[in-house]
């Protein structure tokens, strides 16, 4: 399997409260994950051969245009792809066990306790008619049925405090909270059972920039406290750059590049990553921003060869016919592009 292990040298080891993870290897291995939607107008391959690994305490930013498969990846990892979609193959190994082989009841128990999902909670992710506390309690209870009432309540209030919310929020309703507070509640729910992996799906959209930063810092803090691996899904490269260790770029259901943040911003390898980075505004770079020409392709009618070739500035003749395979470059970066065919 092609795996890359990138340690972040900036993170002091003492800050990490280590937990029993076995040999200290990757806590999450996603291998060849494939998802297809069987629509009336044909089959759409929303995830195509997606593989990556994450260590405990590592943060991965997942970027890509709308429809590139970011959210499908999150749902597939939670095994919550709904018909007409289907997970066609691959494995998601969290802390030693493959989620894809679990029966429905074991998978239910794995959600939140081993792999947690934090939705874009600012709008509508909390039940409007029950108290926040009740929504936290039922999450704990469905995994720890024997835990006492008082212990559960204490656990929930601890979680609220760890996301800088007043424990009084426990007694409140969703409509009494601001967007940022609702998002924090969702984060608090996500960390209730100290999961190995946290997937945050655009946790900052629909929030103002100040709140965005606070929410990201909250995720950062709780993630450090429980030493979970985090996958952060979003479009905002700037916000990502400040918080994640690695960036993965998705295009048309494939992972086209995985690099450390520094490498991604200073020396992006894939032409699509290059186009993404050069489209970002920066203080030093005034003038006209470079957009990416063309539109994201329809998954129902993908271009032949490399799906990016019609929009690619560096496209070569064989890009239109031969599909590039993921390759690991010297130094551990992973790129899916014919430009680097000789370098792996």
């Amino acid at each position, binding site marked *: 399997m092609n795996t890359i292990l990138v340690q972040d040298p900036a993170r002091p080891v003492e800050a990490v409260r280590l937990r029993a993870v076995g040999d200290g290897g990757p806590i999450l291995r996603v291998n060849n994950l494939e998802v297809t939607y069987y629509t009336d107008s044909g089959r759409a391959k929303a995830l195509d051969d997606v593989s990556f690994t994450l260590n405990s305490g590592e943060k991965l930013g997942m970027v890509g245009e709308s429809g590139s498969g970011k959210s499908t990846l999150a749902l597939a990892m*939670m095994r*919550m792809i*709904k*018909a007409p979609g289907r997970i066609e193959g691959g494995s998601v190994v969290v802390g030693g066990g493959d989620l894809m082989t679990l029966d429905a009841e074991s998978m*239910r*128990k*794995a*959600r*939140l*306790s081993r792999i*947690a*999902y934090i*939705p*874009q*909670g600012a*709008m*509508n*992710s*909390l*039940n*409007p*008619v*029950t108290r926040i506390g*009740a929504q936290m309690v*039922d*999450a704990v209870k*469905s*995994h720890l049925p024997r835990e006492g009432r008082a212990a559960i309540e204490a656990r929930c209030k601890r979680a609220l405090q760890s996301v800088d919310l007043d424990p009084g929020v426990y007694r409140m*309703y969703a*409509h*009494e909270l601001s967007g940022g507070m609702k998002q924090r509640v*969702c984060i608090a*729910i996500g960390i209730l059972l100290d999961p190995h992996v946290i997937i945050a799906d655009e946790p900052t959209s629909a929030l103002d920039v100040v709140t965005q930063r606070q929410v990201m810092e909250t995720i950062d803090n709780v993630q450090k406290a429980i030493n979970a691996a985090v996958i952060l899904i979003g479009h905002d490269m700037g916000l990502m750059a400040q918080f994640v260790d690695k960036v993965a770029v998705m295009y048309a259901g494939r992972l086209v590049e995985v690099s450390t943040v520094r490498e991604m911003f200073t020396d992006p390898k894939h032409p699509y990553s290059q186009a993404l980075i050069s489209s970002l505004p920066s203080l030093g770079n005034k003038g006209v921003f470079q957009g990416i020409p063309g539109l994201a392709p329809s998954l129902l009618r993908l271009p032949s060869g490399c799906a990016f070739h019609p929009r690619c500035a560096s496209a070569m003749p064989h890009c239109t016919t031969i599909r590039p395979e993921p390759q690991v470059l010297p130094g551990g970066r992973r790129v899916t592009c014919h430009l680097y065919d000789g370098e792996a």
Partner: protein
Amino acid sequence: MSLKLVIRRLLFLVLVIWAASTIVFFIPRLSSRNALRERFGELARTGGFSPADLEKIIASMNRQFGLDRPLYEQYWTYLGNILHLDFGYSLYRYPTTVTELIAQSLPWTLGLLLVTTILSFIIGNLLGAVAAWPRAPHWLRAFATPFILLTGVPPVIMGILLLFFIGFRLKWLPLGGAYSVGVVPTWTWTFFFDLMRHQILPGLALILGSVGGWVLSMRGMGVTIQGEDYVNFAEHKGLTGGRIFRDYYLRNAMLPQVTGLALALGTMVTSAIIVEGLFGLPGIGTMLNLAIRANDFPTIYGIVLFITIAVAVLMTIVEFIYPLLDPRVRSS
């Protein structure tokens, strides 16, 4: 809910009752018929007293009922009487009071109406909720469709069909009446079962006719709610299917249905009146039927007003219950 809102609701209730009672007072007066003259005219034909005596009797009766006084005076007296639920004497069944008539027939209607309304509300909403729930088994979801089709059948037709096939052809259940002829109502199990056997067909007619409406509206609501983010997040939290269904999906989809229940109460009363007549049950509906035929307007007032007040009060109760179900209403 604030005290101010409670007071406003109660004032509104009073306003509704006043408006209803005023309409009920004036409408029968627009008719050219005179109940006293008809009643005693009939007696005169059979009893053989002179037309002059008849006029005397009618004049004295008019005085006794206050019908000789100006209309506005009658109206004031009437409003005053309503305040202590005194609807006066029945003209047709004098000297029985209208309140007594209502008291006699109310338990029959109340029993039938409450049981059928609650049953069809529960059955209809559960079926509708299941029909819109993607994780429910297919055979269970398909179960809702026949009930939706039945919504188009009015309760009278439904009642006639039930009577014909189950009562007349199959002879499984009695054709009408509240209990078997010759049976004396007593507090025994035998009487209770006899009573229940007579209630099944009218109850079924009411339930079958109304269940589909609940199924339809609940399914529409359910389709929206099942796609809500909080239902998805509940699954992400690893909750069991049953808990997601009950606390996240059903709980939210129910909210507009509770409002619908308040609105449906009026319709259910109308259906019950028709079905009671069809099955010969001695309830409010049958009583109202008889009163209309006899132009017994104190009884008409009384019953119509009583039903109006009952429905208005029930609606107000539902409105007070709603904030308990939806905290967003409570704080606004």
